[in-house]
C-alpha cells in the first residue's frame, strides 16, 4: 500500500510536470508565435525599449524557454527572486510565479481564492450526491413507474440545461424578484449566515446539474447491479429486500459513482468558471478568467496547475478509496 501510494505520488508529480510544461509551453510560446510580446503587456502605454528590456529581464523572459521553465520549477520548491537592478521582488516558496500585473505572488492569491471554490464545491457536492443518487436509486427501484419516468425526464432536462442559464433564472427569480437570497458572496469568516445564504443559489444550481448526471448514472448502475448473480444469492439467503438493496446492491452501485465524484469534485475545487461567473463569485475560475482577459500569464499558469493538482489528487484519492471499498483491487 505504502509503495503504491509512493508510486502514485511519483505519478502525480510526473503528470503535474507534464501539465506545467504544456501550459508553460503554450502560454509562453504562443505570444511569440503570434508576434506579440508579453513584456509589452507590463510596460506603460508608450513602451520605452530599455524599459521593455528591463521588464523582460526581470521576468526572465530573456532566457530560453527551458531555462525559464527550470526557474519556474525551482521556484516552486525554493522560492525565487525577480531582479531588476536594485529592485528585487522576492517570491517565497512555493512560488507558483509572480504576477507583475497585480504585483502579487500567485500562491497566496490562489490560496485566497480557493476558499470560495471550496465552499462552493463541498456544499454543492453534498447536495448533489444525496439528491442525485437518492433519486437515481428510487427510480431504479421503481423502474418503469410514473415516478421513474418523471424523475428521469427531469434528470435529462437537468443535463440539457446550461447551468449559467439555470443560474441566471434562479438569480432573477429568487434573488432579484423574491429577494430570498442575496446575490453576492460573503466569506465564512466574516458572517457564516450570509456565507450560507449567498451560496444557497449557487449550490442548488450546481447541484441540479450534477444531480441530474448522478441520478442517471446511479439508476443505470443500480439496475446493472440488481441483475448480478450475487444479488440473487443474497435474496436466496432469505435476506430482507431492504438489506439486499441497502447493503449488497448499494455498495456496488456507489463504487463507480465514487470515481466520477472524485473527478467532479477535483474539477470544481480547481475553479468553477461558469458558476463563478454566473454568480459573481471570486474563486479560482473567476481569477483565471480575469487573468486571461488581462494576459496575466503567471496567474493563468498558477490556476491551471493548481486546478490540475486538484483533479489529479482527487483521482489518486478515489483510487485509494476504491481499493478500500473493493477488496479485489490490489494496490502494489
Amino acid at each position: 500500500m505504502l509503495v503504491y501510494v509512493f508510486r502514485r505520488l511519483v505519478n502525480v508529480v510526473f503528470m503535474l510536470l507534464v501539465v506545467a510544461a504544456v501550459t508553460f509551453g503554450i502560454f509562453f510560446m504562443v505570444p511569440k508565435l503570434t508576434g506579440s510580446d508579453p513584456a509589452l503587456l507590463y510596460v506603460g502605454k508608450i513602451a520605452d525599449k530599455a524599459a521593455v528590456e528591463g521588464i523582460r529581464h526581470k521576468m526572465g523572459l530573456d532566457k530560453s524557454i527551458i531555462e525559464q521553465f527550470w526557474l519556474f520549477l525551482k521556484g516552486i520548491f525554493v522560492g525565487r527572486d525577480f531582479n531588476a537592478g536594485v529592485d528585487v521582488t522576492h517570491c517565497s516558496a512555493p512560488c507558483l510565479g509572480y504576477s507583475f500585473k497585480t504585483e502579487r505572488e500567485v500562491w497566496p492569491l490562489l490560496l485566497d481564492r480557493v476558499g470560495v471554490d471550496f465552499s462552493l464545491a463541498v456544499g454543492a457536492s453534498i447536495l448533489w450526491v444525496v439528491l442525485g443518487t437518492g433519486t437515481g436509486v428510487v427510480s431504479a427501484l421503481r423502474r418503469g413507474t410514473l415516478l421513474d419516468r418523471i424523475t428521469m425526464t427531469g434528470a435529462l432536462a437537468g443535463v440539457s440545461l446550461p447551468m449559467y442559464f439555470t443560474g441566471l433564472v434562479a438569480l432573477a427569480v429568487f434573488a432579484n424578484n423574491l429577494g430570498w437570497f442575496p446575490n453576492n458572496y460573503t466569506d465564512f469568516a466574516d458572517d457564516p449566515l450570509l456565507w450560507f445564504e449567498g451560496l444557497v443559489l449557487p449550490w442548488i444550481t450546481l447541484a441540479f446539474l450534477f444531480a441530474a448526471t448522478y441520478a442517471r448514472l446511479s439508476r443505470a448502475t443500480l439496475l446493472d447491479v440488481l441483475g448480478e448473480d450475487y444479488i440473487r444469492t443474497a435474496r436466496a439467503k432469505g435476506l430482507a429486500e431492504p438489506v439486499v438493496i441497502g447493503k449488497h446492491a448499494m455498495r456496488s452501485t456507489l463504487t463507480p459513482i465514487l470515481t466520477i465524484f472524485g473527478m467532479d469534485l477535483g474539477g470544481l475545487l480547481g475553479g468553477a468558471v461558469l458558476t463563478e461567473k454566473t454568480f459573481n463569485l471570486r474563486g479560482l475560475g473567476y481569477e483565471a478568467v480575469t487573468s486571461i482577459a488581462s494576459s496575466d500569464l503567471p496567474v493563468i499558469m498558477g490556476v491551471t496547475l493548481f486546478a490540475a493538482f486538484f483533479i489529479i489528487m482527487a483521482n489518486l484519492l478515489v483510487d485509494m478509496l476504491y481499493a478500500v471499498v473493493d477488496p479485489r483491487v490490489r494496490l502494489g
Partner: protein
Amino acid sequence: MSINDKPFLSVRDLKVHFPTDDGLVKSVNGLSFDLEKGKTLGIVGESGSGKSVTSLSIMGLHRAGGKRGAPQISGEIWLDGEDLVAAGPDRVRKLRGQKMAMIFQDPLTAMHPYYTVGAQIVEGYRAHHPGVSKREARKRAIEMLDRVGIPQPDKRVDNYPHEFSGGMRQRAMIAMALVNDPSLLIADEPTTALDVTVQAQILDLIRDLQKEFGSAVIIITHDLGVVAELADDILVMYGGKPVERGPAATLFESPEHPYTWGLLGSMPRLDRELQDRLTPVKGTPPSLINVPSGCAFHPRCPYAELTGGRSTTEVPVLAEAAPQHHAACHLPIAERHRIFADEIAPRL
C-alpha cells in the same frame, strides 16, 4: 415417493411465462413432480429447456408480479404443506435460505465480491436466527466451512471470494446454502464451471452432506453423468415441459422418450465400447416463443411419422410407461420398446 403422505415438495402444473418484446416466452409450461425428504431429483435437459426457471420459481426468486421482466407464474408449489405460489413474498422470503436453499453455477459471480466469505455466511445465518450473536454466527460459519472441507476454516473465513480457488468457492457456496440446515437444497449446475477432478469432489460432498442432513435435493444439470451419480429420480425436460420422469436406474436402463434416447446417443461414453459414430439429435432446440405445435420435439424426432400425424397436432401427456416411470410420447409403449431395443440400445 410415498403415496400416503403428502410429499415434501410437490410441484403441480407449474407454468412460468415471460412477456417480452418478441412475444411470450413459455419457459416452463406445465411441470409437475414430487420430491421426498432424503431423496435427490435430477433435472436434465438442453440449454433453455427451463431448468433454471423452474428452480428460481421454487425459490421465489423471480421478479415480483407487475414489474418489468416479471414472469406470469401459475400452478402450485407445495413445500412441506405450504403453497409457495399462493404465499406472500414475505413468507417465501422467510422460507428461503432456511427451509430451502440454492447453489448456483458460477460461485464467483454468485458471491458478493466486496464481502468476506465468512461475512456472507454469517449474514445468511443471522437473517434466520435473529437472536444469535455475531461471535456465535462466526463460529457457525467456520464450522460450516470446515464441514464442506475447506482447510484452515478459521483463517479462510476472512478471505474474500476472489481469494478462493474455483472448487473452494463452490464449497463455500454450499456452506452458505446449508448454514440453516435447509430441508430442500437446489443445486443449479453446481459443477459445470469446474474441472472433472474438482467436480468429483463436489459431487461427493453433496452426496455426503445429503446423507448427513437428510434433506431433499434437486440437482439440475445437462450432464447425464452427473445425475447418474447423484439422483434417485430423474426428470428430463424439453422446451419447458417434462418429457420423461422416472427412477434413475430405469430411466438409464430403458429410457422411454426419443429425446432421452437422443441425449444418450449423442454422448460418447467412457464406460462403453467405442462407438463408430455418435447418434446426435438432429436440428436445433425449439423456440420457446413459437413452440412447435403438438409434441414440441416432433420436428427433431426421427419417429414422428410413426404417430400418424398426432405428434404435430396433439400435445402428449406424461403417461406412466412403467411403474413410476412416465413419458410424454405419442408412440405406443410397445413400439417404443421395440425401437429402443432394436435401434437405440445397440448403438449406446
